[in-house]
């Protein structure tokens, strides 16, 4: 520890001996760090929002289906036990929120047009807390209960169908015997969503109304559960698994929407690669700086060795110097990143490429997300890699023979 202080003081002084070089290197590290964190915050913000939006459509972090359903989302593949049974099993199990629903492909037809949609038969009260529809931001009204006889469409779909609140549309699907199951509905509300595709794809009707129309009695196609954090769904998953048997399949959201699941894993991978690439680009300059710093004080190193300093202390001194350089650069870079991201947190409008972002599954306003874990990870990675990159010049410095070093001019 004592040695550490001795070496630290020497290292710090030496760092500022050639202040120009140190400042240039610090600038490089700061810019690199800024870019690491800034870029990660933007991407993290985008991906987080994609996932949150995506999950809100799924919805829920864990779902129960018939084992066949995800491959073949048909009314024939319903959850094995009745809705009454479902309520009995899950109501008092202490889930943050859960809902059972009917979800099947259907065709909606107006006087003018037909479109394919996903029919959702829901109990609006059960999923108010996690629905992607803001019940209060609906033209007209949202469904009032599982027995509501009305239908709620996306605003964009209504436009295509040339229909509006108060008009009638026909919903067509199939019953379990593959007979056409259809029914007329009055449009009671139009919802708005972040992405056009969402408004075009989903229609809401009451759960009991849907069950009647599809002639499926007291059954549903899925049960959805909300956890506290979409990044860690294992507690909910395990709890649900404990409450069901093999007749149904329990899936995490990452399995329901593999694109989103991959995105989340990819995000961490991308971030690590980006941090490493920047570090490598910096490492040449870092090693160069250290080589120069050692070169210009070979004599002094020889002197310290002659005075009785151990080679390991010389090694330590150069390493500490390198770590100090990196640490100061990182702090400046972190601060720059923070200072540039904060004002952008209210959102960056990228609607010029909205259609393109929709292909990614992302919205047209980007909210950078400065995640403390990302900051810590990038800083730690840089320090660790920096340590290893500095080993070679530091090792060389400690291998000088005192006599040769001291006579070197």
């Amino acid at each position, binding site marked *: 520890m004592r040695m550490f202080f001795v070496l630290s003081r020497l290292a710090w002084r030496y760092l500022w001996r050639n202040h*120009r*070089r140190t400042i*240039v*290197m610090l600038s*490089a590290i700061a*810019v*690199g760090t800024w*870019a690491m964190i800034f*870029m990660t915050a*933007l*991407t993290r913000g985008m991906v987080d929002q994609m996932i949150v939006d995506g999950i809100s459509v799924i919805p829920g972090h864990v779902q129960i289906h018939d084992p066949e359903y995800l491959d*073949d989302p*048909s009314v*024939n593949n319903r959850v094995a036990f009745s809705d009454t049974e479902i309520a009995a099993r899950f109501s008092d199990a202490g889930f943050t929120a859960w809902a059972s629903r009917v979800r099947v*492909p*259907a*065709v909606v*037809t107006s*006087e*003018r*047009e*037909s*479109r*394919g*949609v996903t029919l959702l038969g829901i109990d609006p009260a059960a999923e108010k807390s996690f629905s992607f529809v803001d019940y209060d931001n609906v033209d007209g009204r949202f469904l009032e209960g599982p027995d509501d006889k009305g239908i709620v469409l996306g605003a964009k779909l209504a*436009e*295509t169908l040339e229909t509006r609140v108060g008009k009638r549309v026909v919903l*067509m699907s*199939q019953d379990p015997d*593959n007979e*056409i199951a259809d029914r007329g509905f009055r449009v009671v509300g139009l919802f708005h969503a972040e992405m056009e595709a969402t408004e075009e794809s989903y229609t809401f009707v009451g759960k009991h109304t849907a069950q009647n129309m599809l002639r499926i009695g007291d059954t549903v196609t899925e049960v959805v559960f909300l956890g506290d954090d979409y990044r860690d769904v294992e507690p909910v998953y395990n709890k649900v698994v404990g409450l069901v048997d093999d007749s149904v399949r329990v899936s995490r959201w990452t399995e329901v929407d*593999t*694109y989103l*699941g*991959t995105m989340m*894993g*990819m995000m961490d991978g991308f971030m690590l690669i980006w941090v490493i*690439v*920047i570090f*490598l*680009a910096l490492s*040449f*300059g870092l*090693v*160069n*700086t250290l*080589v120069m710093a050692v*070169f*210009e004080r070979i004599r002094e190193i020889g002197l310290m060795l002659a005075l009785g300093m151990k080679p390991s202390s010389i090694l330590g001194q150069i390493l500490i110097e390198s770590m100090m350089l990196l640490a100061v650069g990182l702090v400046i870079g972190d601060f720059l990143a923070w200072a540039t991201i904060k004002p952008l947190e209210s959102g960056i409008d*990228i609607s*010029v*490429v*909205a*259609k*393109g*972002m*929709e*292909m*990614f*599954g992302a919205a047209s306003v980007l909210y950078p997300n400065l995640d403390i874990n990302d900051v810590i990870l990038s800083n730690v990675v840089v320090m660790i890699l920096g340590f290893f990159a500095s080993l070679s010049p530091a090792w060389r410095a400690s291998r000088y023979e005192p006599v040769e070093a001291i006579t070197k001019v």
Partner: protein
Amino acid sequence: MNIVLRLAWRNLWRHARRTWLTIGAMVFSNTLLVFMISLQFGMYGLMIDNTLQVFSGHMQIQAPGYKDDQKMRQVVPKVRPLAAHLRQELGTDLVSARGWAFGLASSEERSYGIGIYGVEPEFEARVSNIPGLIAQGRYLEKEDASEIVIGETLARNLRIGVGDELTLLGSGVDGSFAAAVVNVVGIFNSGVREIDRNIAEMPLGTFQEVFYMNGAGHQVVILAPDLDQAQALQQRVEAMLPADDGLVVHGWDALQPGLRQAIQADMSSAFFMYGILVILVAFSVLNTQLMSVLERTHEFGIVMALGLRPGRLGRLVMLETAMMGFIGLLLGALCGALFTTWFTVNGFSYPGMEEMVANFNLPGRVYPRATLLTMFAGPLVVFVFTLAAATYPALRLHRLHPVEAMRTN
């Protein structure tokens, strides 16, 4: 060799390690730039080709408003004669007429809402690669046969195969009820998720009959020999359209606005990353050249005392930088080319990539596209920034005072 060149060259190697480290930074960045840019252009090319050649073509003639609303009654009247006329006038076969309707497709067991295209069997293969992607059975043959080809996923969901019957329900152009029973003659596999799940094609003649089209269709698809000629061809087509019909021609980026925007969004984030890499290299060069100038202060003082102007010394420093940059450019382009070529042959992929890029109609393995531009664009930018970074050390020489400089050690 010229003495100045020789001097610059020898100066460069006084600190061989330092010079190589600086060149190393350049080579690292250049290799990465060459590879990334080649990969990017390879991906964009594939994205455009896949998206356009699967379906939308380079341009389409449509009724105004059809692009956004896709309503049945927004028709192109007498669509087949129009297509025939264009083929004759343009002297090309790459023109085909289509109709599109939304309908409910029912098999014995299942019903799904799908998009049904009416196509000209004879010409569809010229503008779309779906006819060539038949995995089972055959493509459509006769203009008025009651047959249909469907995507592989759709076939699986409907639980039908080649030879089975499919019932179509929908509404005609006038809103009346439309129905038909058709034979599945082929199943295609385009590799594009949405298309394989949602699309069926039937002969345009039959389509017009089923949906009461009265000889009309919804689009005439035209393909240019290649993407670069699309613009010019579009102008010719526009001039050819009968003025009184009020039809419009949409280019590919209007038909697929997401495609261009996705490319733009991707490019801007990529260029941000490239920019950072280039700046980090520039810092590395700045540091090296600053050191190289500072440590020669004494020497420069002597030659200035002998009567050499600072400007000439500045040019010497720039010359050294240019030499170093040039080595970095050549080695970087070479490494980049080798690296890229390997992937051009073997393709580039990473775990999860297939999920990621499917949204952009890309396969799970992409091949970078190496051209002279992708090979040298990055390295040349790095070279320019290298020179720019050396101007500060070079200009510093003007502040040098010979006597003081000679006194420095």
